[in-house]
């Protein structure tokens, strides 16, 4: 896969402690990526979505199916349910 920019927002940003980071990944879909990131530390378990739903956006496109391919993606964002308006 190669290097991907990961972005974190809201509660996920707070738990992971970063707004973004550049990471070398092997996974080809969101679900596998979340598993892969667990090796980077305890705090990444927030991405498993046990306390609240975790959404992701691949290259600025919101993804609802965690099996969606991320091959070739340059930016992947993770965030909790949106609360605009």
């Amino acid at each position: 896969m190669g290097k991907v920019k990961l972005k974190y927002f809201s509660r996920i940003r707070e738990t992971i402690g970063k707004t973004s980071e550049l990471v070398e990944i092997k996974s080809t879909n969101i679900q596998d990526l979340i598993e892969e990131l667990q090796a980077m530390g305890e705090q990444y378990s927030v991405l498993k979505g046990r306390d609240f739903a975790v959404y992701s956006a691949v290259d600025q496109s919101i993804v609802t199916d965690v099996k969606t391919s991320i091959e070739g993606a340059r930016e992947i964002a993770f965030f909790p349910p949106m609360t605009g308006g």
Partner: protein
Amino acid sequence: MLNKIIVAVQKSDFDLDSELEALKLKTEKAGAVVIFVGKVRDLEDDNLRYLEIESFEDLAKNQIKEICDDAANKWDLELILVKHRFGRLKINDNIVLVITCSKHRKNAYEASEFIMDYLKSNVPFWKKEVADKTQKWVENS
């Protein structure tokens, strides 16, 4: 077809009168203007110190544009304007402005509600309420 969609995701406040004056120039044949203003409200059981709105700016702007396109296809509208703020806001500060303008007011009302419903849960903004005793991320009910 509607070609007047204005979308902004911004820190700065908006000014209702100047927005209204500007839109009037583009909608001489429409008589109904529905304006929704979402503002920061105080908490029921605590004193809000401020609301912090975090945004994924570019994606938010694109998501709002998409919903405006949807609304423009569903209803006969002359103009749609959506401006959403982010950053630190105090009680009564404006958060969001949605303006829909149409010949028949029913269209403007329905489109405005549709856009607001969508904004609440499909556009990447997150609100944190920082109050005297508590501090928490707002959750959709």
